[in-house]
């Protein structure tokens, strides 16, 4: 098998990965950094973020206010040191992005505009109409092109981490175009592969969001933290799961039930439509359960009403919402309300890291949605995640640049070479050649249905027990799966099978972690344990991979200045 060598490998080419790569080459002028991504970086799912990115940039605002909003939003499960570092670095990262060319929307005085967002007590969300993710991603990607020391492996799929004596020394990766497996050696690896939303059936996440990096770390012995904390966004288009941005409510949109009522008055009267996402999603389901929803071809829904904003404001501030509503629902939001319902959007949990992005396994770092640096706790506030990718992507890149300066270059000997050969056998001799097994698409569909039904917005012991059983059963079925496509060249069937295998690990960690947390906090809502329980659960879940289901450990929450209090809006 051929092998390649770099100082640093970044797995994933979205916001966190690109920011990390740029930070690393800027930090140290000699490093060779490679981004390995299963898609061209500009296809990364960062592209779909819409509403904005939070940072304190105005005189009326303060870092403490941003920190407190974030911590309260997290239902006090966020590590407060991580949040404090985040809010402090956020303005710097926002200006840096602006200097790199991001086409932010502007106020008449030329400053970057800000808008209101859920759970934020003042306007602090910077935006570029309603396409911040797209603009942020393309700005970062195009900026990354000016550094010739950032090498790229576009459309390469990482299949495993290669470890040697509690240290990562590289990865195995398929060059999808040729189907050839390579070993890429590196002194350090940064995981920046994003979330795992595709384990669910109804999600805003793109097809590529299969939790690859989470599973890679999990398999290498690193724990996945707080995986039970799954964010359900309140406004997805029924059927497709296309996201309608929270900015629609930030700009003044209403949520209404079939009686024409702004029903949020019953749940968070102080915030109304700008409550945090966990509470709004639950409120929508409660309205539906109590018979005040609308019935449609794709089940029950509520409506997002933007009519009173008028055509001009919608055109100016929410052009993408207009485009999506027109194209995919056939309505003009200036004249008709948009049908919406809650669905999976974001994974608060992820690869356990400290504030520098370090995972505890030598040389392995993580940033962005794939990581859990514990700044989002049990519920992330909208518009914090893009900023998180920048802040913690930059931290990981800089930290790793310093770290690798003192590390020797790994050599292509054992055990790494042996692990790579084993991986080649697993993929090409076992999976690719296996005949007459079950098609992977049926396993995928059953996983997504099972997660949707049993590990959704409301959970209890019975549903979660069933969820665990289903996942274990699917893992067994996976060992007898068959891919139709036996070719080497651009075999998306094979890549999908490997992704599904990764997703099953993520689904397992989510479900077992959820079952073990017998309280309700943030997005994790247990019907059988409706109260938050700080005595037993003011702590992070750590799920370690184990053949018979994960082993659970717990880690205390870091509290600096804000004592946990009841979360009332």
């Amino acid at each position, binding site marked *: 098998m051929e092998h390649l060598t770099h100082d640093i490998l970044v797995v994933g080419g979205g916001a966190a990965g690109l920011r990390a790569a740029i930070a690393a080459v800027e930090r140290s002028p000699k490093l060779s950094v490679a981004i390995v991504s299963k*898609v*061209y970086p*500009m*296809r*990364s*799912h960062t*592209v*779909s973020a819409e509403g904005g990115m939070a940072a304190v940039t105005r005189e009326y605002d303060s870092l403490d206010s941003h920190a407190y909003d974030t911590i309260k939003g997290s239902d006090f499960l966020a590590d407060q040191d991580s949040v404090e570092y985040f809010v402090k670095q956020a303005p*710097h990262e926002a*200006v*840096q992005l*602006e*200097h*790199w*060319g991001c*086409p*932010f*929307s*502007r106020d*008449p*005085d*030329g*400053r970057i505009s800000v808008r209101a967002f859920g759970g934020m007590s003042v306007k602090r969300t910077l935006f570029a109409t309603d*396409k911040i993710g*797209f*603009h942020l991603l*393309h700005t970062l990607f*195009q*900026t990354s*092109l*000016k550094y010739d020391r950032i090498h790229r492996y*576009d459309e390469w799929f990482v299949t495993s981490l290669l470890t040697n004596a509690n240290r990562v020394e590289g990865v195995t990766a398929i060059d999808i*175009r040729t189907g050839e497996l390579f070993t890429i050696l590196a002194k350090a690896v940064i995981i920046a592969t994003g979330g795992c939303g595709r384990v669910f059936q109804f999600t805003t996440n*793109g*097809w*590529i969001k299969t939790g690859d990096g989470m599973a890679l770390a999990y398999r290498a012995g690193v724990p996945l933290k707080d995986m039970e904390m799954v964010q359900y966004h309140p406004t997805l288009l029924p*059927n*497709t799961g*296309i*996201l309608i941005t929270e900015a629609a409510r930030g700009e003044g949109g209403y949520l209404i039930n079939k009686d024409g009522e702004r029903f949020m008055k019953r749940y968070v009267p102080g915030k109304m439509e700008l409550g945090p996402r966990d509470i709004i999603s639950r409120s929508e389901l409660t309205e539906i359960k109590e018979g005040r929803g609308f019935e449609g*071809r794709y089940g029950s829904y509520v409506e997002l009403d933007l009519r009173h904003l008028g055509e001009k404001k919608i055109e100016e501030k929410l052009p993408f919402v207009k*485009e*999506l509503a027109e*194209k*995919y629902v056939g309505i003009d939001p200036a004249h008709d309300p948009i049908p919406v319902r809650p669905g999976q959007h974001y994974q608060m949990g992820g690869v356990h890291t400290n504030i520098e992005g370090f995972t505890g396994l030598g040389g392995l770092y993580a940033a962005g949605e794939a990581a859990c640096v514990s700044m989002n706790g049990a519920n992330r506030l909208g518009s914090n995640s893009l900023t998180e990718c920048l802040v913690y992507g930059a931290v990981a890149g800089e930290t790793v640049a310093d770290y690798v300066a003192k590390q020797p270059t790994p050599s292509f000997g054992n055990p790494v070479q042996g692990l790579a050969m084993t991986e080649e056998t697993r993929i090409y001799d076992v999976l690719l050649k296996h005949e007459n097994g079950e*098609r*992977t*698409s049926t396993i*995928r*569909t059953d996983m997504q249905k099972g997660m949707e039904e049993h590990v959704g917005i409301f959970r209890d012991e019975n549903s979660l027990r069933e969820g665990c059983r289903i996942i274990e059963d699917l893992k067994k079925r996976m060992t007898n799966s068959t*891919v*139709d*496509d036996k*070719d*080497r*060249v*651009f*075999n*998306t*069937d094979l890549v999908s099978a490997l992704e599904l295998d990764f997703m099953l690990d993520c689904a397992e960690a989510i479900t077992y972690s959820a079952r073990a947390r017998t309280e309700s906090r943030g997005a994790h809502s247990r019907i059988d344990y409706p109260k938050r329980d700080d005595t037993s659960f003011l702590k992070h879940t750590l799920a370690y991979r184990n053949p018979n289901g994960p082993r659970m450990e717990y880690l205390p929450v870091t509290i600096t200045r804000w004592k946990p209090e009841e979360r009332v809006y």
Partner: protein
Amino acid sequence: METETATIRVARYRPEKSEKPYFQEYKVPYRKDTVVLDALNQVKAEQDGTLAYRWSCRMGVCGSCGANVNGVPKLTCATFLHEFKGKSLTIEPLANFPVIKDLVVNIDDFMEKLLKVKPWIIRDKQSPPEEGEYKQSGKELDRYAQFSSCINCLLCYAACPIYGLNEDFLGPAATALAYRYIADSRDQGKKARFPIVHDLEGVWECTLIGECSVVCPKGVDPMLAIQKTKILGAMEAPKTMLSPEALKAILPRGGE
């Protein structure tokens, strides 16, 4: 909403099986809200896992899923099956690109062109972020905003007859992105980009057919960017392009 059945004809190319491309037909269920990509996904999941194509966001912004649908470059996630009711529906890889497999095309050429136009802010002196943002008025933003909306889906290259004849032509998206930076009030890199956009294979190759702007799913008007770049070039030429070679490059090339 009723479910009906459509027959789609998909171009297949599997280099390990045969040198020759061929067509394969599939029957797929569809409703009023089914897009072409849904049909491909139905085939892949339920009928034939060997079919290869790219996709991700399914909301018209990642730019992965372009294909020629009945000969016209389209995002398959934003093209509805019912629009073709009663007609045949043929899905082929984006024209003008080498095919890797089935609907997957090789976009190396565009990636090189993107790099060539230096798509990043160039300034004589960088200010540190601590000094705050570069101010920009709404008017200044408007000068480049539409050109920054390019999602790199490459439908414009598939539609461009000039690119079809001359793959060295810089082409619509790369020029639009070059102009996006040239027109940005924060950028000072006009001089660095001029030799690239005004090269022999740059904007002067374009004969203003305008197919690029017609097929763009994001309302970008690459032809306008090309026009504006030509005008800027013509204005700057006396100052910056005095070499005979460069002058030749910006002169009309009728008769060639």
